[in-house]
């Protein structure tokens, strides 16, 4: 019972941060500020859901290696995709500050 509650709270937290990331995409004024919302929210959003999975698999007596692998991939790919997006935009625009 306790485990289900903890896992549910983590899933809800993860979902809330993902939602905030999406709201940020809509509300923030330009490309670079918009980029902030999903790169951060996606990490903790998915992070929360992965943590819930970890709690569940720990309760079931397994190691939860799959969840850890998901978290690892996410932490490596989020900065790289943000970097590629911003590099692409810089190429097609005047450099900042000009």
């Amino acid at each position, binding site marked *: 019972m306790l485990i289900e509650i903890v896992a549910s709270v983590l899933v809800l937290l993860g979902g809330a941060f993902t939602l905030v990331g999406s709201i940020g995409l809509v509300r923030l004024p330009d490309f670079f500020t918009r980029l*902030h919302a999903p790169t951060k*929210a996606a990490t903790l959003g998915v*992070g929360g859901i992965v943590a819930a999975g970890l709690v569940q698999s720990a309760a079931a007596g397994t190691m939860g290696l799959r969840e850890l692998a998901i978290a690892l991939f996410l932490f490596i790919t989020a900065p*790289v995709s943000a970097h590629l997006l911003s590099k692409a935009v810089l190429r097609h625009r005047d450099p900042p*500050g000009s």
Partner: protein
Amino acid sequence: MSRVLPQPLVSLMILALWIAIAPSPSLGQVVLGSVVALAIPWFTHPFWPDPPRLLRPGVAALLFLRVIWDIVVANVEVARLVLGPADRLHPVFIELPLEIDDPFVATILASIITLTPGTLSVDIDRARRVLLVHALDVADVPATIDTIKRRYEAPLKEIFGC
């Protein structure tokens, strides 16, 4: 560094990950994982810079925990900015002078900057040794540069001795 195994450590990591993700560990999965673990470094090693030696694993573990904590703080902070009044933001571009020369370590620093509070790595200017960072809401640019240097760059220099 042999021809068959250009990066033994990377191969080992890929194999371990493959088995960890596999639905059930079996001999077939180990064989399949080994093929992938051999093939990926073979294709990607021309893109890899020589990774420097990890000199201070203890400092690395501390930095890892600090970054995890900062990611949580970053999310709360960004959530507050996103849901608050948008016209009060002060987005700026910051040119961060790099002391790190090694491309591998500089990449780690850039990734940490992207994942942590209100900052995003945009571009690395290797010739001028400047990292272009976009900040979501910063009033004091020198203080931000100082924080990044103290919190992340200094430990990275210590960890890899560069």
